[in-house]
């Protein structure tokens, strides 16, 4: 249970980090919070020859919120995002989902961007990024690109990051006007890996009927799966919507795998239950937000 030897790098700038990444190539691994990487190293499931600790690189510990959304730097801890009042105002789903990431003590060290780069299909934050059509800012020596969640998650524990690239920040778009969100998951114990999880987003039109309903699923495939369930919701007000129809539609479209924790059939069942739960709650929240927006719609909330 001791990590294997590695060469430690502690670059003092992003530029220096990129130089080290370019030199170490596939032998190098970035260390941010380490809450997923270090257990894997302790169990000798991962043995990177070079660890590049970015905690001293500077400029990455930045959490910026605007009315457009939340930008989270690469070394911002999950606990900070969870507690931040401005983040909650702009995109409350981040707090609700982060509360399911391991335990509070782990979130004090674990980072949001690290969780995305780890690309665990059981991870909550990749599903949130995918649901919100968020993006990840990626840099390498002399290059910079913005990657969508859809393109970033390449498979279980696999992102589309090249060996010489560093994910410097993630952007989570704000909750739109007249919209609500919700997160729920089923795990054997709170804080354990999700057997199945779901993040839901409901948007209402001017007449407060469901205009869009989407759900992203955790632990239901190699990558976060996002379903558009708008049609199945039937364009009614949230209170008059039969969310179980959306659940049925989701069950028909998902193809979960089986493992030691759950059969495929049980996962499909849970996905349906959680679909109805998160859409119902997101719909009620959207209605509440629109109602308190009072004709001027929820512009006043922002």
């Amino acid at each position, binding site marked *: *249970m*001791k*990590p*294997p*030897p*590695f*060469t*430690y790098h*502690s670059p003092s700038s992003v530029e220096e980090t990129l130089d080290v990444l370019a030199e170490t190539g596939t032998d190098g691994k970035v*260390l941010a919070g*380490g*809450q997923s990487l*270090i*257990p894997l*190293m*302790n*169990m000798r499931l991962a043995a990177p020859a070079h*660890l590049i*600790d970015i*905690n001293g690189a500077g400029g990455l510990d930045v959490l910026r919120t605007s009315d457009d959304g939340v930008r989270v730097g690469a070394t911002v801890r999950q*606990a900070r995002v969870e507690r931040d009042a401005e983040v909650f105002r702009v995109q409350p789903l981040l707090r609700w989902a982060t509360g399911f990431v*391991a*335990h*509070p*003590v*782990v979130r*004090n*060290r674990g980072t949001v961007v690290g969780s995305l780069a780890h690309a665990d299909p059981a991870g909550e934050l990749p599903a949130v990024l995918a649901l919100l059509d968020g993006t990840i800012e990626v840099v390498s020596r002399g290059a910079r690109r913005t990657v969508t969640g859809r393109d970033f998650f390449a498979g279980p524990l696999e992102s589309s990051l090249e060996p010489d690239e560093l994910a410097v920040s993630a952007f989570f778009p704000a909750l739109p006007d007249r919209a609500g969100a919700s997160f729920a998951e089923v795990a054997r114990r*709170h*804080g354990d890996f999700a057997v199945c999880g779901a993040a839901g987003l409901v948007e209402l039109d001017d007449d407060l009927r469901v205009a869009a309903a989407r759900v992203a699923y955790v632990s239901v495939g190699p990558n976060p799966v996002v379903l558009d369930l708008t049609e199945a919701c039937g364009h009614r007000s949230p209170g008059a919507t039969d969310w179980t129809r959306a659940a049925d539609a989701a069950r028909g479209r998902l193809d979960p795998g089986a493992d030691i924790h759950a059969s495929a059939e049980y996962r499909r069942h849970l996905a349906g239950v959680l679909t109805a739960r998160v859409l119902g709650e997101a719909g009620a929240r959207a209605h509440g937000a629109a109602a308190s927006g009072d004709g001027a719609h929820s512009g006043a909330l922002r």
Partner: protein
Amino acid sequence: MSEDVYEIRLTVNGVPRSARAPARRLLSDFLRHDLGLTGTHVGCEHGVCGCCTVLLDGAPVRSCLMFAVSARAHEVTTVEGLGGPDGSLGPVQRAFQECHALQCGFCTPGFLVAVTALVRDARAAGRAGPTEEEVLEGISGNLCRCTGYQNIVKAVHRAADLMAEHGAEDGGEP
């Protein structure tokens, strides 16, 4: 492979400390083996049990999920730092003793450290102590195989009471 050894300087329980260790030395092992502070216990070494919890710049973290070299120039508080300089028990330790919140004691250092931060944060927010829900969430990452947790939960509330009394004696709190 010959490993590079680093001079690791940090502050532990208010005292500047240093020792030499390779980069792969976990903070938990550094505290125990290199600094001789064996109060921090090591259970699972993959972040599940919570026995190795220490405060890093005031925030509770798993010392088994951090390399000592990453803690350079930071402040660490271990269970040894929770009591008075004369060896007397701190308020959280007293509460655990009064409420019989430990049996074998192996998990206790991790609980004491996590609970210290939990109660401190609630009080810093201007409240008497953490709510029941906050207590359950706050200790959810620490495993105890003896007590069944009931007395630990009681001890967290008792610790908040003791801190309030202590604060009142100091005239710092109403």
